[in-house]
């Protein structure tokens, strides 16, 4: 899983930054950036887990990195019946991370402790380390370098176990065979070494440029009839710098064939390669290749023998910004790495800039040949290890969200015409009605025009305005009409309006009722008029129930709060009347009160003192009262503004509790509504 180094000047250095997913569950993503920092990210929540700067990070930048195989940790114990033990979940904890540097040293960093664990220097490389591979089982580490050597390290002792010359030029890549007995190295040619004896077992031609990645793709030979010696028949993959072809090679028993079996073609130099090992013959190998141009190419292929034509990818994934506004064009976001999740059905994509990458799990859909994901990464910017005390994410709550309160259409199911058998009749009627309405409309318009000519009273222009406003849906025109407070004017307008505008008017009124309570106060007057004047017309309409359903629901939901409001109203009135009453009694009685018998003690000074104190307190009390009264008045005003139904008790200041019953009684809209419903 090694990736290329971050060489800057060398034209043959692999592109991209060294990075790797932690083995098994891919919980972490380590990335060694060109500024010398090693950053480890949590893949699940895209959080910077830790950051480490090696002491010599400027001279010896990290050129390659590799996670150690997962350290099994004892984390579970059985639950006994007497008292449960607190066993903890099973997880393979990954810990050590090996970093190769440009000066030839290898650092072992412990991600659990967050500190440098050890440094492999003595007897190792004296030039840039190109690739590091951990052995699966033995705890050995293999590294190769520009100094042409391959070194086998004993990690337990931090010492060189073996060092041998791997090639005549620099060795650029390594890979250990699935059974752990062979090692592939790539220098000028690709060589397969027997690890025990350090002898070359096979040669392969390789690439023209330095090989940046080597990987075994199968763990079983394709032909299962033959006895398997652990290596013969296996395929492996190689990618090289500046090479748009990934070659697949097969290890064969005879030593003749040295050229590639097949190849995959991609759009640019491969930067990061991940694959799922196929465990049997039928299962295809899935390959994800991240290219230098920021695209991911996915291949799915069953490896079986030669294929002359280079294969093209089954699917290409690209990521782009949404492109804010109309002018800016979407920009591509480079993908840095891609790793298959353990279920093999989804891919972890790392994209964005290397100092703040975003990690996302994308489900794979093999059918689509091209996936373009639109992602907005402009707002995720936090280049520090998060020391936020609580890992709280706040989901966006903006004003664009739809708000449903009782009474608004959508809060409750829309009332639909219930009986289906009468539908036909209805539709017939409807069509008839429509024809009529067109005629009627024409007629009405004529009449209106004539009327306009005849009368120059203001009331006459109102129906016209209203009709025109309703037809054109002109907000200002409607405002002009509907915002009158004159009840007579409203009555007259409603009387003279053409019949076909009744329903549109009602709908307009409903819309306005749902709005601000203040406007609802005016609309209620209109509604009342319309319903009383045009009740007979409305009752003839066949689809009245669905037409006025929302209005009805609105009324109902508002009326529900009516009881509570009237309770409050009553309580407030009680309070106010009590206050005013006490005020009056005070004002009335205090001067007229005379003691029937006055017993005077000798010390009259004290008395006078008391009186003064009394007066003072009284004054205070009065002031308080006034204040509270005025406050309450305001309260009441507000209350009444909100209360659309209770409009007819505007002069409810001096009432007592008895009025409460009346209040409940004359909610005049209710009965009307019900009558309309039939």
């Amino acid at each position, binding site marked *: 899983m090694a990736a290329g180094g971050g060489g800057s000047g060398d034209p043959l250095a692999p592109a991209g930054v060294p990075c790797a997913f932690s083995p098994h569950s891919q919980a972490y993503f380590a990335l060694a950036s060109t500024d010398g920092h090693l950053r480890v990210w949590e893949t699940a929540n895209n959080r910077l887990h830790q950051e480490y700067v090696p002491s010599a990070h400027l001279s010896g930048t990290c050129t390659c990195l590799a996670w150690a195989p997962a350290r099994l940790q004892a984390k579970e114990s059985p639950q006994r019946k007497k008292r449960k033990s607190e066993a903890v979940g099973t997880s393979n904890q990954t810990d050590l991370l090996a970093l190769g540097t440009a000066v030839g040293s290898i650092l072992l960093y412990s991600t659990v402790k967050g500190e*440098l664990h050890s440094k492999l220097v003595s007897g190792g490389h004296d030039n840039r380390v190109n690739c590091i591979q951990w052995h699966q089982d033995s705890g050995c580490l293999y590294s190769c370098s520009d100094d042409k050597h391959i070194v086998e390290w004993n990690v337990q002792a931090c010492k060189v176990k073996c060092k041998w010359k791997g090639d005549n030029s620099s060795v650029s890549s390594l890979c250990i065979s699935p059974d752990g007995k062979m090692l592939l190295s790539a220098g000028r040619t690709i060589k397969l070494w027997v690890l025990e004896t350090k002898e070359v077992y096979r040669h392969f031609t390789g690439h023209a440029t330095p090989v940046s990645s080597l990987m075994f793709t199968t763990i079983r030979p394709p032909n299962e009839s033959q006895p398997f010696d652990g290596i013969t028949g296996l395929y492996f993959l190689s990618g090289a710098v500046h090479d748009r072809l990934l070659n697949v090679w097969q290890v064969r028993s005879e030593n003749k064939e040295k050229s590639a079996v097949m190849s995959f073609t991609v759009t640019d130099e491969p930067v990061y390669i991940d694959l799922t090992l196929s465990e049997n013959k039928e299962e295809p190998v899935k390959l994800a290749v991240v290219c230098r141009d920021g695209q991911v190419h996915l291949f799915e292929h069953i490896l079986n023998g030669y294929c002359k034509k280079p294969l093209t990818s089954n699917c290409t994934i690209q990521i782009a910004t949404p492109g804010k506004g109309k002018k800016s064009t979407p920009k591509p976001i480079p993908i840095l790495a891609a790793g298959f999740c353990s279920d093999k059905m989804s891919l972890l994509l790392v994209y964005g800039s290397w100092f703040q990458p975003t990690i996302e799990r994308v489900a794979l859909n093999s059918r689509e040949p091209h996936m373009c994901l*639109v992602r907005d990464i402009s707002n995720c910017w936090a280049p520090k290890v998060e020391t936020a005390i609580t890992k709280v994410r706040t989901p966006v709550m903006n004003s664009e969200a739809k708000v449903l309160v009782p009474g608004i259409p959508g809060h409750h199911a829309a009332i639909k015409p219930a009986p289906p058998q009468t539908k036909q009749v209805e539709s017939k009627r409807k069509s008839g009605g429509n024809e009529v309405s067109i005629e009627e409309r024409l007629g009405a318009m004529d009449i209106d025009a004539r009327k306009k000519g005849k009368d120059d009273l203001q009331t006459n222009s109102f129906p016209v305005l209203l009709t025109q406003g309703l037809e054109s849906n002109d907000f200002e025109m409607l405002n002009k009409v509907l915002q009158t407070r004159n009840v007579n004017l409203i009555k007259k307008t409603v009387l003279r309006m053409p019949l076909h505008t009744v329903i549109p008017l009602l709908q307009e009124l409903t819309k306005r009722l749902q709005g601000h309570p203040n406007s609802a106060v005016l609309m209620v007057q209109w509604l009342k008029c319309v319903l009383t004047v045009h009740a007979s017309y409305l009752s003839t309409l066949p689809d009245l129930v669905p037409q006025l359903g929302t209005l009805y629901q609105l009324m109902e939901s508002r009326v529900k709060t009516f009881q509570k409001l009237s309770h409050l109203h009553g309580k407030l009135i009680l309070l106010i009347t009590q206050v005013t009453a006490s005020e009056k009694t005070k004002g009335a009685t205090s001067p007229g009160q005379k003691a029937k018998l006055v017993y005077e003690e000798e010390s009259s000074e004290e008395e006078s003192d008391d009186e003064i104190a009394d007066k003072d307190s009284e004054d205070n009390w009065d002031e308080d009262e006034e204040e509270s009264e005025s406050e309450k008045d305001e309260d009441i005003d507000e209350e009444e503004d909100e209360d659309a139904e209770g409009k007819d008790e505007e002069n409810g200041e001096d009432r007592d509790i008895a009025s409460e019953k009346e209040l409940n009684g004359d909610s005049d809209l209710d009965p009307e509504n019900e009558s309309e419903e039939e």
Partner: protein
Amino acid sequence: MVDEETIRVVRCGGSELNFRRAVFSADSKYIFCVSGDFVKVYSTVTEECVHILHGHRNLVTGIQLNPNNHLQLYSCSLDGTIKLWDYIDGILIKTFIVGCKLHALFTVAQAEDSVFAIVNKEKPDIFQLVSVKLPKSSSQEVEAKELSFVLDYINQSPKCIAFGNEGVYVAAVREFYLSVYFFKKKTTSRFTLSSSRNKKHAKNNFTCVACHPTEDCIASGHMDGKIRLWRNFYDDKKYTYTCLHWHHDMVMDLAFSVTGTSLLSGGCESVLVEWRDATEKNKEFLPRLGATIEHISVSPAGDLFCTSHSDNKIIIIHRNLEASAVIQGLVKDRSIFTGLMIDPRTKALVLNGKPGHLQFYSLQSDKQLYNLDIIQQEYINDYGLIQIELTKAAFGCFGNWLATVEQRQEKETELELQMKLWMYNKKTQGFILNTKINMPHEDCITALCFCNAEKSEQPTLVTASKDGYFKVWILTDDSDIYKKTVGWTCDFVGSYHKYQATNCCFSEDGSLLAVSFEEIVTIWDSVTWELKCTFCQRAGKIRHLCFGRLTCSKYLLGATENGILCCWNLLSCALEWNAKLNVRVMEPDPNSENIAAISQSSVGSDLFVFKPSEPRPLYIQKGISREEVQWGVFVPRDVPESFTSEAYQWLNRSQFYFLTKSQSLLTFSTKSPEEKLTPTSKQLLAEESLPTTPFYFILGKHRQHQDEKLNETLENELVQLPLTENIPAVSELLHTPAHVLPSAAFLCSMFVNSLLLSKETKSAKEIPEDVDMEEEKESEDSDEENDFIEKVQDTNNTGLGEDIIHQLSKSEEKELRKFRKIDYSWIAAL
């Protein structure tokens, strides 16, 4: 392959971390906390768990560093043992069997071979502080029965005991008095807050106590939020106390800093208060710590503090009051209303977290991912305040939609209810509020479910409520000329004879909706919303309802409150079978036909796994938990297992997790404990070999060389090269705090000179004296170093008699000359 193994119930994840004070290692690299039967070792830098020390058979109640060897840790448990651990490698060194339940552990550096523990011997609520003598023995298990009684009638909590002034006295608080026991005089003094005051304020009970590390000063915390500092308590009459008051509620814990210059306190305000110089004026605060501070501890090195919080987290705080790391477990502060869910997107477990939040918890890595703030209101922590509760949540359409219900009910009639529908925005990778519905129902919402059928083109949500209705909400296009939006609207309202709707669920293909109305189950067609049929068994209210899946999709299962499990056939509309089972939890497996039911009986909870097509269960496990199981969930496995045995096949594709009443998360495992427990030898252990620094070249190599030389010439030669750590100049340079050192330029020449040998000034006699002086000074040197010095001393002494003048070898002289030539200007530049 695993036929002989049995399925066991195992704890997984999110265990309690805030039970007792956390303890720092001497170098502040690690922090230890008790967690159930285990002791967990965390790294203070990375927040990662380094080791889990297991060996206790009951709740671990106390941990302390071994004062004689700071690489070892004592722990005590209710199982009556004290264990000594090597925490760096996670190895159990010794077990001391005490025999009675131990409730807390204290160590004092001065009491060398004994520790202190809280026990209750005779009566259940009378606790005593005893001193336990730990016998020296080479064996692994030692009996430690020698208990000597120190204090009686003390509080059970270790917060109410503190050892002060290097172990001269011990202070204990309980209710309204503070008692101090002096070890030398063997007397106890008792101080009471005057009773008249008790009546007046009624709330000045003691809650915790802390002792100044060097002075005679005791700090006590009280219920009313006051901290009292007691002085002069050697005298029963002349004692004084001063008050510090900032907390508005109970002081939860107190701790003095290592030097004793400042006092730390915390409470439910979730603010850490540092009182400098024990005065009320000099206060420093670290606010917004997220939850009530339960414990405070201080690292022996003095550079870190840590606070344990009620939401199961430990915050590590720098000396300058900056939080540096957070160790967060599964939040267990409050009751779980939402149940367990799996986020289809992150595969994380989702449940109630902090108040008003949903927590996302990764089961794979046993870590909390994040808390999602749903209610978005400031949480006011005050007693008796009725909070908005997040009562229901559901994921729909592969994680694209999240529906949440929050409610606040102050009185029976005054219900505030709100439903929020959140859309997952792929562009910004986060949830965005799409629709907010005030009072979606007139009464509490009892169930919430999305239609998760794959083919359904229109997202559908059903809410069932106690008001007798269920509402169907659909996503509709709300676009107008200004913008393109979608929003949820109510599509259908259904009811059945004014019964309360209690449960709802969609069939797998989304064609049918089942809603239970108390005792009756109604089936509705999801296209026309027509009532198709009803089932009624008259066996009590329906508690759980679910459709069968895959091949069993023609079955509907219902569990009633009277302990009947019914299975109806939807094709024949008849009861297929029923069984008497008091079902508490019923969960269908999303990947198979299996349904897991957990029943509750008087002895414990039992698990039944069955297919709806057969009344006979596939698997039964009795006694999975003694507590009531509240919630359960199937978690699909990433990589399917391949159990061949019939009894375990239900675990192949999913794993079953369940949550008990005490909020411990449990699961089933088939792997034997041996397989999971890897011996330390099998782990990849890499030697620590750290790189060389310039100082290493000067000091370390020198010493190494010296050491080699010693070994070579031990017999016949006297070594006269001064040891680097014995040179006063060097030790001064290394041991004096940086801020009091003179400038490096001044020190440089002295330092370099001291490294050179001069025959004239240093006679052989002076060296051992120097060594002695150094030894006295450096009392904190590690054992190893002491040994080394002793060794050198020995050689020196033996060499003295022979009086051989040491001759430097050529190579050594060369090296020294090289040192002279080396440019030391870099030191000056430091």
